[in-house]
Protein backbone atom coordinates (compact mmCIF):
# COMPACT_ATOMS: atom_id res chain seq x y z
CA UNK A 1 0.00 0.00 0.00
CA UNK A 2 1.06 3.53 -0.74
CA UNK A 3 -0.37 6.67 0.81
CA UNK A 4 -0.09 10.04 -0.80
CA UNK A 5 -0.50 13.02 1.46
CA UNK A 6 -1.17 16.36 -0.20
CA UNK A 7 -0.32 19.30 1.98
CA UNK A 8 -1.22 22.82 0.97
CA UNK A 9 -1.62 26.19 2.58
CA UNK A 10 -5.02 26.96 4.02
CA UNK A 11 -7.08 29.54 2.21
CA UNK A 12 -6.28 32.96 3.58
CA UNK A 13 -2.64 32.17 4.19
CA UNK A 14 -0.49 34.19 1.86
CA UNK A 15 1.54 31.92 -0.40
CA UNK A 16 4.73 33.75 -1.34
CA UNK A 17 6.11 30.76 -3.20
CA UNK A 18 2.98 30.56 -5.34
CA UNK A 19 3.14 34.28 -5.97
CA UNK A 20 6.75 34.04 -7.11
CA UNK A 21 5.96 31.17 -9.45
CA UNK A 22 3.08 33.04 -11.05
CA UNK A 23 5.22 36.14 -11.49
CA UNK A 24 8.09 34.21 -12.98
CA UNK A 25 5.76 32.44 -15.39
CA UNK A 26 4.34 35.79 -16.46
CA UNK A 27 7.87 37.12 -16.93
CA UNK A 28 8.62 34.18 -19.16
CA UNK A 29 5.64 35.11 -21.32
CA UNK A 30 3.07 32.69 -19.90
CA UNK A 31 0.57 35.44 -19.43
CA UNK A 32 -2.42 33.12 -19.23
CA UNK A 33 -1.41 32.10 -15.70
CA UNK A 34 -3.32 34.23 -13.24
CA UNK A 35 -2.41 32.46 -10.05
CA UNK A 36 -0.24 29.66 -8.73
CA UNK A 37 -0.10 27.74 -5.51
CA UNK A 38 2.59 25.43 -4.31
CA UNK A 39 2.01 22.45 -2.10
CA UNK A 40 3.76 19.25 -1.10
CA UNK A 41 3.07 15.61 -1.84
CA UNK A 42 4.50 13.10 0.56
CA UNK A 43 4.39 9.55 -0.64
CA UNK A 44 4.59 6.90 2.04
CA UNK A 45 5.35 3.27 1.37
CA UNK A 46 4.26 0.74 3.98
CA UNK A 47 5.49 -2.63 5.07
CA UNK A 48 3.27 -5.55 4.05
CA UNK A 49 0.44 -5.94 6.55
CA UNK A 50 -3.20 -6.98 6.77
CA UNK A 51 -4.30 -3.66 8.19
CA UNK A 52 -7.43 -2.58 6.34
CA UNK A 53 -7.85 0.64 4.42
CA UNK A 54 -9.59 2.43 7.26
CA UNK A 55 -6.96 1.46 9.75
CA UNK A 56 -4.20 2.67 7.46
CA UNK A 57 -6.03 5.89 6.79
CA UNK A 58 -6.45 6.51 10.49
CA UNK A 59 -2.73 6.03 11.03
CA UNK A 60 -1.81 8.37 8.19
CA UNK A 61 -4.18 10.94 9.60
CA UNK A 62 -2.32 10.71 12.89
CA UNK A 63 1.01 11.17 11.06
CA UNK A 64 -0.36 14.28 9.40
CA UNK A 65 -1.56 15.81 12.64
CA UNK A 66 1.65 15.00 14.44
CA UNK A 67 4.20 15.75 11.81
CA UNK A 68 3.41 15.97 8.14
CA UNK A 69 1.28 19.09 8.20
CA UNK A 70 1.34 22.20 10.34
CA UNK A 71 -2.37 22.73 10.81
CA UNK A 72 -1.86 26.33 11.85
CA UNK A 73 -1.26 27.14 8.21
CA UNK A 74 -1.76 23.96 6.24
CA UNK A 75 -4.50 21.55 5.37
CA UNK A 76 -4.00 18.06 4.03
CA UNK A 77 -5.70 15.37 2.01
CA UNK A 78 -4.88 11.67 2.03
CA UNK A 79 -5.07 9.30 -0.92
CA UNK A 80 -4.52 5.56 -0.57
CA UNK A 81 -3.33 3.42 -3.39
CA UNK A 82 -3.32 -0.37 -3.34
CA UNK A 83 -0.63 -0.40 -6.09
Amino acid at each position, binding site marked *: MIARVYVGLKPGVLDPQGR*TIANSLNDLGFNEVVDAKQGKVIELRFAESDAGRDAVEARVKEMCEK*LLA*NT*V*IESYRIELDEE
Partner: protein
Amino acid sequence: MQTAVIVFPASNCDRDAATALEKLTGKAPRMVWHNDPIIPDDVRFVVVPGGFSYGDYLRSGAIAANSPVIQDLKRKAEAGLPVLGICNGFQILTEARMLPGALMRNTNQKFVCRISRLRLANAKTRFTKRYDAKNEIDIPVAHHDGNFFADDDTLRRIEGNGQVVFRYVDNPNGSRNDIAGIVNEAGNVLGMMPHPERAVDKLHGGTDGIPLFKSILESL
Protein backbone atom coordinates in the same frame (compact mmCIF):
# COMPACT_ATOMS: atom_id res chain seq x y z
CA MET B 1 23.43 29.94 37.51
CA GLN B 2 22.83 26.77 35.51
CA THR B 3 21.51 27.23 32.00
CA ALA B 4 21.06 24.77 29.14
CA VAL B 5 21.18 24.66 25.37
CA ILE B 6 19.28 21.98 23.53
CA VAL B 7 21.16 20.30 20.71
CA PHE B 8 19.43 18.69 17.77
CA PRO B 9 21.16 16.98 14.89
CA ALA B 10 22.26 19.95 12.76
CA SER B 11 21.52 22.62 15.27
CA ASN B 12 24.38 24.85 14.45
CA CYS B 13 24.06 27.90 16.64
CA ASP B 14 24.36 25.74 19.73
CA ARG B 15 27.93 26.86 20.12
CA ASP B 16 26.98 30.52 19.59
CA ALA B 17 24.35 30.19 22.31
CA ALA B 18 26.69 28.38 24.67
CA THR B 19 29.39 30.99 24.15
CA ALA B 20 26.97 33.79 24.96
CA LEU B 21 25.55 32.05 28.03
CA GLU B 22 28.96 31.25 29.37
CA LYS B 23 30.07 34.80 28.87
CA LEU B 24 27.06 36.19 30.71
CA THR B 25 26.67 33.66 33.51
CA GLY B 26 30.31 32.71 33.95
CA LYS B 27 29.29 29.09 33.77
CA ALA B 28 29.11 26.69 30.85
CA PRO B 29 25.54 25.73 30.00
CA ARG B 30 24.50 22.10 29.92
CA MET B 31 24.26 20.85 26.36
CA VAL B 32 21.12 18.70 26.34
CA TRP B 33 20.82 16.16 23.53
CA HIS B 34 17.51 15.96 21.66
CA ASN B 35 17.03 12.34 22.66
CA ASP B 36 17.40 13.00 26.36
CA PRO B 37 14.01 12.50 27.96
CA ILE B 38 14.64 15.01 30.75
CA ILE B 39 16.18 18.44 31.08
CA PRO B 40 18.23 18.31 34.29
CA ASP B 41 16.42 19.79 37.29
CA ASP B 42 19.08 22.33 38.13
CA VAL B 43 18.54 24.13 34.84
CA ARG B 44 16.97 27.55 35.35
CA PHE B 45 16.92 28.86 31.77
CA VAL B 46 16.86 27.05 28.44
CA VAL B 47 17.90 28.22 24.99
CA VAL B 48 16.58 26.40 21.94
CA PRO B 49 19.27 27.45 19.46
CA GLY B 50 19.27 28.34 15.81
CA GLY B 51 20.42 26.21 12.94
CA PHE B 52 18.86 23.68 10.64
CA SER B 53 17.66 20.88 12.90
CA TYR B 54 17.16 17.82 10.72
CA GLY B 55 18.27 19.86 7.74
CA ASP B 56 15.00 21.83 7.96
CA TYR B 57 13.58 18.98 5.92
CA LEU B 58 9.78 18.76 5.69
CA ARG B 59 9.32 22.12 7.49
CA SER B 60 11.76 24.12 9.59
CA GLY B 61 11.52 22.91 13.14
CA ALA B 62 8.82 20.29 12.52
CA ILE B 63 10.84 17.19 13.22
CA ALA B 64 12.68 18.70 16.17
CA ALA B 65 9.36 19.73 17.74
CA ASN B 66 8.54 16.04 18.07
CA SER B 67 11.75 15.07 19.83
CA PRO B 68 11.68 13.64 23.37
CA VAL B 69 13.39 16.60 24.96
CA ILE B 70 10.82 19.05 23.65
CA GLN B 71 8.06 17.10 25.39
CA ASP B 72 9.86 17.68 28.68
CA LEU B 73 10.56 21.29 27.77
CA LYS B 74 6.85 21.83 27.24
CA ARG B 75 6.01 20.47 30.68
CA LYS B 76 8.68 22.54 32.34
CA ALA B 77 7.75 25.70 30.46
CA GLU B 78 4.16 25.28 31.54
CA ALA B 79 5.47 25.15 35.08
CA GLY B 80 7.23 28.46 34.49
CA LEU B 81 10.75 27.62 33.28
CA PRO B 82 11.95 30.46 31.06
CA VAL B 83 12.79 29.47 27.49
CA LEU B 84 14.34 31.43 24.63
CA GLY B 85 13.95 30.09 21.10
CA ILE B 86 16.23 31.74 18.58
CA CYS B 87 15.66 31.46 14.83
CA ASN B 88 15.31 27.70 14.27
CA GLY B 89 14.49 27.58 17.98
CA PHE B 90 11.58 29.96 17.37
CA GLN B 91 10.42 27.74 14.51
CA ILE B 92 10.62 24.71 16.79
CA LEU B 93 8.62 26.42 19.54
CA THR B 94 5.82 27.35 17.15
CA GLU B 95 5.81 23.86 15.66
CA ALA B 96 5.58 22.49 19.21
CA ARG B 97 2.68 24.90 19.83
CA MET B 98 4.53 26.50 22.69
CA LEU B 99 4.09 29.77 20.81
CA PRO B 100 1.32 30.84 18.46
CA GLY B 101 1.67 31.28 14.71
CA ALA B 102 4.05 29.79 12.18
CA LEU B 103 7.18 30.81 10.32
CA MET B 104 6.95 30.60 6.58
CA ARG B 105 9.42 31.07 3.76
CA ASN B 106 10.66 34.67 3.39
CA THR B 107 8.54 36.49 0.83
CA ASN B 108 11.45 37.01 -1.54
CA GLN B 109 12.29 33.28 -1.26
CA LYS B 110 15.86 34.02 -0.30
CA PHE B 111 17.95 33.39 2.76
CA VAL B 112 18.73 36.71 4.39
CA CYS B 113 21.71 37.51 6.61
CA ARG B 114 22.06 41.10 7.77
CA ILE B 115 22.12 43.28 10.83
CA SER B 116 18.51 44.21 11.40
CA ARG B 117 17.17 47.08 13.40
CA LEU B 118 14.42 46.08 15.84
CA ARG B 119 11.92 48.20 17.66
CA LEU B 120 11.01 47.13 21.18
CA ALA B 121 7.29 46.57 21.03
CA ASN B 122 7.12 45.56 24.67
CA ALA B 123 9.95 46.66 26.91
CA LYS B 124 8.35 45.33 30.06
CA THR B 125 8.70 41.59 29.54
CA ARG B 126 11.06 39.41 31.56
CA PHE B 127 13.30 39.41 28.51
CA THR B 128 13.42 43.13 27.79
CA LYS B 129 13.40 45.00 31.09
CA ARG B 130 17.07 45.88 30.91
CA TYR B 131 16.75 47.73 27.64
CA ASP B 132 15.80 50.72 29.80
CA ALA B 133 15.00 53.73 27.67
CA LYS B 134 16.38 52.21 24.49
CA ASN B 135 13.69 51.57 21.94
CA GLU B 136 15.67 50.44 18.93
CA ILE B 137 18.40 47.82 18.84
CA ASP B 138 20.56 46.16 16.18
CA ILE B 139 20.58 42.38 16.08
CA PRO B 140 21.67 40.10 13.20
CA VAL B 141 19.18 37.95 11.35
CA ALA B 142 20.10 34.89 9.30
CA HIS B 143 17.22 32.79 8.07
CA HIS B 144 15.25 31.45 5.15
CA ASP B 145 11.95 30.88 6.94
CA GLY B 146 11.34 33.87 9.14
CA ASN B 147 8.09 35.13 7.74
CA PHE B 148 5.80 35.15 10.78
CA PHE B 149 2.20 34.26 10.11
CA ALA B 150 -0.78 34.09 12.42
CA ASP B 151 -4.43 34.33 11.45
CA ASP B 152 -6.31 37.56 12.15
CA ASP B 153 -7.81 36.40 15.45
CA THR B 154 -4.53 35.17 16.80
CA LEU B 155 -2.79 38.31 15.66
CA ARG B 156 -5.36 40.50 17.39
CA ARG B 157 -5.03 38.44 20.55
CA ILE B 158 -1.27 38.52 20.76
CA GLU B 159 -1.16 42.21 19.93
CA GLY B 160 -3.81 42.88 22.57
CA ASN B 161 -1.91 40.91 25.19
CA GLY B 162 1.35 42.67 24.55
CA GLN B 163 2.88 39.40 23.39
CA VAL B 164 4.67 41.05 20.50
CA VAL B 165 8.12 41.87 21.84
CA PHE B 166 10.19 42.92 18.82
CA ARG B 167 9.29 44.38 15.43
CA TYR B 168 11.52 44.91 12.42
CA VAL B 169 12.08 48.51 11.46
CA ASP B 170 12.80 47.29 7.93
CA ASN B 171 10.95 44.01 7.51
CA PRO B 172 13.32 41.53 5.83
CA ASN B 173 10.96 38.59 5.38
CA GLY B 174 7.33 39.61 5.05
CA SER B 175 6.28 38.90 8.65
CA ARG B 176 2.78 40.07 9.52
CA ASN B 177 2.82 43.29 11.57
CA ASP B 178 6.64 43.28 11.17
CA ILE B 179 6.81 40.78 14.00
CA ALA B 180 10.33 39.64 14.88
CA GLY B 181 9.71 38.07 18.28
CA ILE B 182 6.83 37.11 20.56
CA VAL B 183 6.27 35.70 24.04
CA ASN B 184 3.66 33.24 25.21
CA GLU B 185 0.77 34.46 27.33
CA ALA B 186 2.57 33.64 30.56
CA GLY B 187 5.58 35.62 29.39
CA ASN B 188 8.20 32.97 30.13
CA VAL B 189 8.74 31.69 26.59
CA LEU B 190 10.25 34.05 24.00
CA GLY B 191 10.72 33.15 20.35
CA MET B 192 12.56 35.46 17.98
CA MET B 193 14.09 35.22 14.51
CA PRO B 194 16.99 37.63 15.13
CA HIS B 195 20.03 36.24 16.95
CA PRO B 196 20.69 38.04 20.25
CA GLU B 197 23.43 35.50 21.04
CA ARG B 198 25.35 36.89 18.06
CA ALA B 199 25.25 40.36 19.60
CA VAL B 200 27.07 39.97 22.90
CA ASP B 201 30.56 40.83 21.69
CA LYS B 202 31.90 44.10 20.34
CA LEU B 203 34.06 42.27 17.82
CA HIS B 204 31.20 40.14 16.57
CA GLY B 205 27.76 41.54 15.82
CA GLY B 206 27.66 44.26 18.46
CA THR B 207 26.38 44.18 22.02
CA ASP B 208 22.66 44.89 21.76
CA GLY B 209 21.84 41.32 22.74
CA ILE B 210 23.39 41.61 26.18
CA PRO B 211 20.47 43.37 27.92
CA LEU B 212 18.14 40.60 26.76
CA PHE B 213 20.18 37.92 28.47
CA LYS B 214 20.71 40.12 31.49
CA SER B 215 16.97 40.77 31.82
CA ILE B 216 16.05 37.14 31.91
CA LEU B 217 18.99 35.97 33.99
CA GLU B 218 18.38 38.63 36.60
CA SER B 219 14.73 37.74 36.83
CA LEU B 220 15.57 34.25 38.07
